[in-house]
């Protein structure tokens, strides 16, 4: 099999656009998922039992079903209940929902790792509930949860490939499209692998850097 990269260079515009969509859906989806996850975990701490059980069910359902099925439900099933989304917003929302359940669990683990006595001390010192979360809990739990967060963000970066199934024109979709048109699968797949490996390695490096920063901040 001879390898000829002209297929790649000829379609460079489409490929960079696809990579841009991969990055965009990933970053937007992750940001949304982080916010949703944090909100869910904080609500789980302070809300009444029915709401807690509802949130628990949400987390269990999202974690117990495949991402692909969630995407299908959102994109193909959504119109039946009046939710019509274009592929890219549907994919981003899907990523956000999928990630939020996992992030919520990570945050919950972090919150639970802070001893209760500290919160009692905070209340004794006259800190409000939100001050206690913001000033006492969050900074301490960060150091514990950063590795798990990085891991999940990496998983989300790989899940963006699945968005190609609901016709989001991201890296995998664009490149397999070029592949089926030109039969140059080897070249296509080399670029695909390099693209995702670069994304994953970069994220894990950033994760390590953040881990060190947060660790230094905590040890003082």
């Amino acid at each position, binding site marked *: 099999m001879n390898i000829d990269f002209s297929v790649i260079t000829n379609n460079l515009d489409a490929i960079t656009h696809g990579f841009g969509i991969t990055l965009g859906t990933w970053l937007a989806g992750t940001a949304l998922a982080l916010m949703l996850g944090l909100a869910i975990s904080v609500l789980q701490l302070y809300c009444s039992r029915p709401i807690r*059980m509802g949130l*628990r069910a949400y987390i269990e359902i999202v974690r117990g079903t495949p991402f692909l099925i969630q995407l299908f439900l959102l994109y193909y099933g959504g119109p039946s209940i009046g939710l019509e989304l274009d592929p890219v917003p549907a994919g981003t929302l899907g990523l956000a929902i999928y990630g939020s359940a996992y992030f919520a669990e990570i945050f919950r683990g972090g919150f639970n790792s802070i001893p209760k006595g500290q919160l009692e001390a905070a209340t004794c010192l006259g800190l409000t509930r939100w001050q206690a979360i913001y000033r006492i809990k969050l900074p301490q739990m960060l150091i514990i949860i950063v590795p798990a967060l990085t891991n999940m963000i990496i998983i989300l970066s790989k899940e963006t490939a699945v968005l190609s199934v609901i016709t989001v024109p991201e890296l995998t979709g664009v490149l397999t499209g070029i592949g089926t048109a030109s039969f140059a699968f080897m070249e296509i797949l080399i670029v695909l692998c390099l693209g995702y490996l670069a994304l994953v390695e970069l994220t894990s490096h950033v994760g390590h850097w953040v881990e060190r920063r947060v660790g230094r901040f905590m040890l003082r």
Partner: protein
Amino acid sequence: MRDSLLGIAASLALVGQTHPKYLGVMINLSTTLQSLPLLLDAALITISISLVTLVFGFLLGIVVCAMRLSASPLLRTLALIHVRFFRGVPLLVQLLMLYYLLPSIGLNLSSMAAAIIAVSICESAYVGEILRGGFLGIAPGQLEAARMLGLGRISTVLRIQLPQAMRLSVSSLTSEMIILIKVSSLVSVIGVTELTRTAQNIAASTYRPLESYFMAGLIYFVINGIVAWLGMLGEKRLSKAHQS
């Protein structure tokens, strides 16, 4: 666990309510309920794919782990590249790669065979790392003690290290099985008619995507709930056997 069972019960109640007598305006499960046997058959295929890839993944994972812990730098590097690659590239890309590339080098595999090979190899990278963690978790004092007692290298591995590493990884078996059941939905993309693909077909023929994907999701959820429950039972039994 109790909450997830409650969730299952609630979902089943929802299905019960959509009996033809209570037809909703927008959500109508009756047509999809007719195709429930199809979905359940497909669920068996999903379960078998997950089980087969779990077994192959574990066998290959033992090899990967042995290579990563071996004395030879060549084997170590190869295993590291294997792990980095298969954990760094999305499984969907690996599936497409195998499915499209193999015919071009003259190998014609059925989509099922391609799916099982791709998922097993990917799983081996994850299992290899899990097992490595198990081996590294064994206190070095035990190895010294084994050497003191005159055990050879092979019997140290077989009698001291492997049983402990396996016990550690048995608890990860459950979570790996659940991950594989979810991940096996991706093989629908290369045309394997498992649960997701069947749901797609039903959605296309009944024009009711919401209901059909809802049913498929429910089946995945129930399977995963059962696997998690079985895993908990097994772990309890294992820890009891270990204590006595």
